[in-house]
């Protein structure tokens, strides 16, 4: 049908077939194109490698932060490495305490005393029958490089004898450039459930600029002391032929006490629980 056209096309092809061309020039062109692609490939690989190492570094870093945040053991370990303390402090927060605040166990107190340019404020507390955590803030007129709370003494103003079993009032505050404000916590736990609502706290603040002041603050807890919530467990667990009975859990805003009992039929005696932790339904402690 189009034989004429086809014929002409083939003739034209023949002409191209007959074209003289230097093979070297062709090879050179091919080689040049190949080199160009090759060199770009190398850059691509380098870029990819760089991206990989970045990704790995990011994963490691996130893993590190995650571990500090959720594993107190690891956090304690990291804190020993110079320069890591600040990062650990930032990341590590007491989840249980955060939950207590979120669940409105936190009560505002806002009592303060000022002496020689230093103001001590008790901002608030989380308290239950067995323990109390007081949040304080130090305000200073001058920049302080160091400030330490010492000689803390908590007394009931209702004549109640507080049988404290545990007391902790933060590490010394320290700042290289000096800060005008420091915040911290004072923790108390008692052997005997407390009933008082009015308290008096005495403490001493020492620090740079020969700071050494005694403070005495009276405060009262506005909210009811949270009673413990008892959860009966009555669950028997058997490990290596030894039985452990979990009788009940006493849940306080600040603590959880789990009562366990080992039947006398056990052939071994359990001396200690190690790596003890409370895990929620999500596997978080």
């Amino acid at each position: 049908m189009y034989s004429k056209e086809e014929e002409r096309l083939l003739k034209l092809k023949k002409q191209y077939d007959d074209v003289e061309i230097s093979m070297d020039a062709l090879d050179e062109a091919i080689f040049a194109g190949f080199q160009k692609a090759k060199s770009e490939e190398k850059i691509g690989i380098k870029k990819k490698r760089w991206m990989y190492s970045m990704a790995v570094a990011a994963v490691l870093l996130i893993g590190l932060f995650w571990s500090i945040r959720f594993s107190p053991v690891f956090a304690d370990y990291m804190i020993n490495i110079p320069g890591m303390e600040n990062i650990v402090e930032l990341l590590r927060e007491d989840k249980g305490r955060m939950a207590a605040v979120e669940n409105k166990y936190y009560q505002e107190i806002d009592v303060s005393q000022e002496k020689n340019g230093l103001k001590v404020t008790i901002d608030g507390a989380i308290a239950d029958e067995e323990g109390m955590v007081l949040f304080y803030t130090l305000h200073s007129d001058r920049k302080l490089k160091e400030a330490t709370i010492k000689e803390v003494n908590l007394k009931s103003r209702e004549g109640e004898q507080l049988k404290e079993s545990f007391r902790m009032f933060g590490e010394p505050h320290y700042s290289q450039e000096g800060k005008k404000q420091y915040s911290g916590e004072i923790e108390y736990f008692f052997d005997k459930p407390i009933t008082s609502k009015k308290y008096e706290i005495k403490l001493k603040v020492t620090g740079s600029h020969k700071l050494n002041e005694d403070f005495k603050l009276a405060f009262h807890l506005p909210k009811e002391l949270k009673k413990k919530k008892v959860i009966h467990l009555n669950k028997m667990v058997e490990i290596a032929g030894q039985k452990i009975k979990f009788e009940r859990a006493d849940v306080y805003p600040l603590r959880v006490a789990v009562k366990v009992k080992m039947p006398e039929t056990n052939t071994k005696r359990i001396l200690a629980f190690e790596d003890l932790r409370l895990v929620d339904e999500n596997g978080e402690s």
Partner: protein
Amino acid sequence: MKPEEQWVLDAIKGDGEAFMKLMKLFKLDLYKTALSYLHNEEEALEAIQEVTYRAYKHLRSMKQPAYFKTWLIRIMINYCNDQLKNNIRITVNAELLQSYGISENHTVMELKDAMQGLDERSREILTLKYFHDLKIKEIAQALQCPEGTVKTWLNKALKMLRDRLDEKGGSLNV
């Protein structure tokens, strides 16, 4: 399997030498295609360089090793079409014709002219069919369309070519 098909497989796996062998095997086909489109030796060489580059970069997207040649030629045709769009100044001048080392007669010039006037697809089909001796089936595979479609396109292309040649009032009018 033809040896070049094995080369294609090797090249896809990253064997640069196999790729170079393939390029050398098909360099004349590529060159002639480039020449038929660009009518310029220098530009054709440049086209070969660029097509080598593109082919290597997209080697992994090549699916059928048996159609490596068609695949290469199509890259070349695409490149040439891009080039033509970029510089519309292509006209056959006497100097270049001499550099081909052939004395071109009037009808050949006419045909070249007519080819240039065709749309991209028609020209591609004619190039593949007549300059590279590809079968309808091979073209269909390369363009990924049914053979019937290729036939239709080919007929259309030939008809357009005839019309163009007729317009010129060439002596070959039927």
